[in-house]
């Protein structure tokens, strides 16, 4: 591998990781408040469609981004209502959201592109760094030659760390997942914190969908998320619910994907399927305790009932 192909691989790895990093950072907030959201896959898919829809309608990239976040937030709100207010099983509610998202996007794919013989490509996120920075070795392709949404993919996990560990509000979010009754005793609303957490995960899953469609593709295809939302759930286990480590796990997953596509063309001794398996092998290893102890928030999966102690 020469320098050019290394640069090219690094750029692809980050491109493919960015949507996962955004979804992952947002999803930490729901997990930390003790609510599983396996509906992220479906939420991301509707985010993809919403981004393209709003872009086709308004022609404005940023309105399209906000639209995707809004629709993602709505899906988060539905999940929050089901699991927090109605105390429904979090896995069942999430699965229902995934099925619903798949059905609704299949149904609306026709109307979305009605009147177009071919899918047109919508406006993409611009690359804003000056040429000189883009040509830097290693850092150039990773950071500067990327569309602007990639900056957000790096900034959001850092911001999430700061919020979770440096603000009192973040302390409350973390406490809700571990000791909700203690938070209630302190006079804070457990429900409100959980609602905010779940809706945040939806908003960022929507933004992740926008990152997937508007970074370099500019179009929607039914089922295009292809398990990326589930990959994020695996990244939590590997990243031990820590924003920076989760982002790192997402980069690892994205890199494995970029690598397997390249491994098929260069004659490597290792079959490319090994790289396809790699993220999941790591997840299994993490669950088996091989990369240190992995403990999620204590009450995750359990509905909060103020009357039970």
């Amino acid at each position: 591998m020469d320098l050019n192909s290394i640069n090219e691989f690094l750029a692809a790895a980050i491109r493919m990781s960015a949507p996962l990093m955004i979804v992952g950072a947002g999803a930490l907030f729901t997990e930390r408040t003790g609510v599983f959201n396996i509906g992220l896959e479906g939420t991301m898919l509707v985010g993809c469609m919403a981004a393209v829809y709003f872009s086709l309608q308004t022609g404005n990239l940023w309105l399209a981004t906000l639209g995707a976040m809004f629709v993602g937030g709505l899906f988060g709100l539905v999940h929050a209502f089901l699991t927090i207010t109605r105390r429904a099983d979090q896995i069942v509610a999430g699965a229902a959201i995934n099925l619903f998202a798949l059905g609704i996007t299949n149904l609306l794919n026709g109307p979305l592109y009605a009147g177009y013989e071919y899918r047109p490509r919508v406006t993409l996120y611009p690359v804003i760094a000056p040429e000189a920075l883009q040509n830097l070795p290693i850092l150039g392709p990773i950071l500067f030659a990327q569309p602007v949404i990639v900056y957000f993919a790096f900034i959001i996990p850092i911001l999430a760390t700061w919020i979770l560990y440096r603000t009192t509000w973040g302390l409350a979010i973390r406490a809700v997942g571990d000791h909700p009754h203690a938070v209630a005793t302190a006079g804070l609303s457990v429900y409100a914190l959980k609602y905010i957490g779940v809706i945040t995960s939806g908003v960022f899953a929507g933004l992740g969908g926008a990152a997937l469609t508007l970074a370099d593709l500019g179009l929607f295809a039914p089922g295009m998320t292809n398990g990326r939302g589930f990959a994020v759930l695996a990244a939590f286990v590997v990243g031990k619910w820590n924003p920076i480590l989760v982002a790192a796990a997402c980069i690892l997953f994205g890199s494995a994907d970029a690598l397997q596509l390249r491994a098929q063309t260069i004659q490597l001794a290792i079959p490319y399927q090994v790289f396809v398996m790699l993220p999941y092998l790591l997840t299994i290893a993490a669950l088996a305790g091989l990369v240190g102890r992995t403990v999620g928030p204590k009450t995750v999966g359990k509905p909060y009932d103020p009357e039970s102690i």
Partner: protein
Amino acid sequence: MSKSMKIVFVLIAVTTVILAGCQPAAAPATEEAAGKTKVAAVFPGVVTDQSWNQFGYEGLQKAETDCSLETAYTESVTQDKQLETLRNYAAEGYDIILAHGGEYADSIKTVAAEYPDLWFGLVNGAGEGPNVSSMIIGYNQMSYLAGALACNMTKTDHIGFVGGESIPVVDAGAELYKEGAQTCGKEVQVDVVYTGDWADVTKARESGLSLIAGGSDVLYHILDTADAGLIAAAEDEGVYAIGLYRDSSALGPKAVIGSAMGHPGTMIYQLACGKVPQGEKTWLDVHTPDGVNIHMTDLVPADIQAKVKAIWDEMVSGELTVKNMGEP
């Protein structure tokens, strides 16, 4: 049942209704339609996918007018729903029941045996049974022609192929693309990448970019709705692409030099209109009306267009036979 469980059940019920809403019957039986041949078709995906399923659906619609049929269809008929849906159409008295994809081969075989008086048709798979007609898309001829075009247009003597999954028909396409690429008097290197998914546009685009980085300057594919991603990669990087099934030039006006034509709708059209005798397995090839062909855009110089067309002519006349990877 707790209140929360009820809510979940209601949500699941709503989901089911909406999913069911994706599967409309095109034309409910009416009195006026009596006397017309009744044809039903099942599709593995949604008929608005701008690819395999939509093309098949368009073929069915064309057959409805041309052969004055009464048609119905069900979309998103996945593995678990195959038998149930096919039996349902058989019980409702449809004369011809079609399945749009090789994955239906086993289900068609089963249901055709249960209803020996009805006529079944299988698109892109080998049907079994005296009352089953099947037609298989000639990826071999299409890919050979695409390879010949790529050979003439590559400047780096290095071209790429992206497949959805490594299955026999697609492997055959890759193989014949390689053979076609050695027909212009130079040795051309061919790289092959499988994405593992027919609809993942991002992976298709990334596969294209990795092939381009590896030196390929003409990309061809066997993908479904993910084709837009691959052609976008070629368009963005300033290399050439060859489309599949129909003229794909609108997906990348600067990139698409041609398309390997062989419309999935032609197969369903032939089967719906009863042009393939019962028990017979045929190819969608250069001899089929509206069959395999190569479409070339203005990006291809006239002399190269003539060269590639000559190969198609040789296929038609029978001078040139390309391997049939697995008999139908």
